[in-house]
C-alpha cells in the first residue's frame, strides 16, 4: 500500500464529492444554465494538467542536473499523465464549445494551446520509445520536455494575440460563491488522483529502467587464459 495508492483513493473520493455537489446541488451557472456544470470537470482538469506539466518540467531539469533514473522515470510518468489529462481537456473543451458557441472547435487560446501541448508531449513519448540507449534516452526526453514546457506560455500568448484580432468572445468565467466549494473539491481531488497516477506510473517505469541495466543480468566473468611459456 504505497503513498500513491492512498493519494489516488482520496483523489477519487474528493472528485466524487466535488462532481456530486457540482452536478446536483450547486445552482445552475448564471449565464449558461445547466450546461455550465461542465465547469466542475473542465476547470479542475485544466489546472491539474498545468500542474502535472510543471512537475514534468521540474523533473526534467532535475533529470538533466542529476542524471539519475528516478528523475527520468518521474519525467516519463508525469508527461504521460499530462497527455491523458490534456486529451480529456481538449475533449471537454470542444463539448463545452458546442452548446455555448455552436461550434465543435472554437479558436479559444486555451483550447488551442492545450491541443498543441498534447501533440508536443505525445511526440516526446513516441520519441522516447525509439531510443534504446538509457543515458541518451534520459537526456533527450529531458531536453524535449524542457523545450516543450518553455513553449507553452509563448504559444498561449501568440494564439491569444492572433485570435483576439478576429472576434473576441472569450467564455464567461463568472464563478459565483456557492460554486466555489465543488470546484475546489473537484480540483484537489483531481490533483491527488493525478499525483497517485504519476506515482504508480513512475514506479513501473523505474522498475523497467532498473531491470534494463540490472547488474544481475551481467554475464559470468570468464576465466583468464593461461598462455604457454608465460610466468602468470
Amino acid at each position, binding site marked *: 500500500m504505497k503513498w500513491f495508492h492512498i493519494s489516488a483513493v482520496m483523489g477519487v473520493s474528493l472528485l466524487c464529492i466535488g462532481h456530486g455537489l457540482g452536478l446536483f446541488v450547486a445552482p445552475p451557472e448564471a449565464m449558461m444554465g445547466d450546461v455550465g456544470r461542465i465547469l466542475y470537470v473542465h476547470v479542475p482538469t485544466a489546472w491539474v494538467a498545468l500542474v502535472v506539466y510543471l512537475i514534468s518540467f521540474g523533473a526534467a531539469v532535475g533529470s538533466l542536473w542529476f542524471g539519475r533514473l528516478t528523475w527520468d522515470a518521474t519525467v516519463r510518468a508525469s508527461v504521460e499523465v499530462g497527455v491523458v489529462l490534456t486529451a480529456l481537456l481538449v475533449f471537454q473543451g470542444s463539448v463545452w464549445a458546442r452548446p455555448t458557441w455552436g461550434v465543435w472547435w472554437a479558436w479559444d487560446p486555451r483550447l488551442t494551446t492545450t491541443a498543441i501541448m498534447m501533440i508536443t508531449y505525445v511526440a516526446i513519448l513516441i520519441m522516447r520509445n525509439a531510443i534504446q540507449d538509457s543515458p541518451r534516452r534520459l537526456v533527450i526526453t529531458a531536453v524535449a520536455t524542457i523545450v516543450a514546457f518553455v513553449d507553452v506560455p509563448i504559444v498561449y500568448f501568440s494564439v491569444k494575440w492572433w485570435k483576439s484580432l478576429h472576434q473576441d468572445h472569450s467564455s464567461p468565467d463568472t464563478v459565483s460563491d456557492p460554486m466555489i466549494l465543488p470546484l475546489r473539491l473537484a480540483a484537489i481531488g483531481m490533483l491527488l488522483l493525478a499525483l497517485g497516477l504519476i506515482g504508480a506510473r513512475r514506479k513501473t517505469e523505474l522498475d523497467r529502467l532498473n531491470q534494463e541495466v540490472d547488474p544481475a543480468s*551481467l*554475464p559470468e566473468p570468464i576465466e583468464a587464459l593461461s598462455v604457454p611459456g608465460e610466468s602468470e
Partner: protein
Amino acid sequence: MSPIVQARGLCRRFGQRWAYAHIDLEVAEGERVLLIGANGSGKTTLLRSIATLLQPSLGQLSLFGMDPKTHCIDIRQKIGLLSHMTGLYEDLSAADNLTVFGRLTGSGRVDVREVLERVGLIDRRDPIGGYSAGMRRRLSLAHLLLRTPQLTLLDEPFASLDPEGVAAVGKIISQMPGTVIMASHQVQQAAAISNRTVLMESGQIRWMGPATNAWSAWRSSQVGEG
C-alpha cells in the same frame, strides 16, 4: 602520476545484450595498448566509451583523472579517435576537410600540406566521397595527425590498407606522442609497435600481458575454442 585511463567494473548494455562487461583496465602515460579479439568482442564499443562518445551503463571510468560525466568537454579536447567512419565530409576534398578541422585546432595550411604528404594524399582534389577505403583510412589518420591528442584511440588503423600503407601507418603510429590504445586484427604488425596487449572475448577481458606474447595468446585462445 595518475593513470591516463582508469576503468573499474565497466559495463555497457545494448538492448538485451552486454556489449562489454567487467572491464578493469589502467593505462599509464605513454603506454601503447593493443586490443585484440574476434569481431563483436566489444573492442569498438569499449574504444568509443573511452573516447567519451558512448556512456558506459555501469562502472567507473576516469580519464586524465577526471570523470567524463562532469568534465566531458575538457576530456574530449585531449582525445583523438580514428573510427570505422572517416569522420570527415564526403562533399569536400581532402585538403578542404583538413583545412576545416585545422582551423578549429589552429593548425595552418602548411601543416595540412605536410600531413597530407605523410599519408601520400597530396595530389587528390576530388571530394572524398569517391575515395577508396584505404585512402579514406589514410585521410582519417592525417586528420588525427593534425592535432596532437594526449590520448589517441585507433580502431583498426591497418584495415583495408595495402602492404606499403601498413608499413607507413605503423611507422606513423610508433612516432605518435602520448598514449595510444589500438584495436586491430593484424596482431603481429600491431604487437610490434605496442608494449601491452589485451585479449577480449565476448565483451570481457580474457588475457592481459606483454605485447611479445600477443601472438601466442591469440593462438591459444583460438585453440581453446577449437
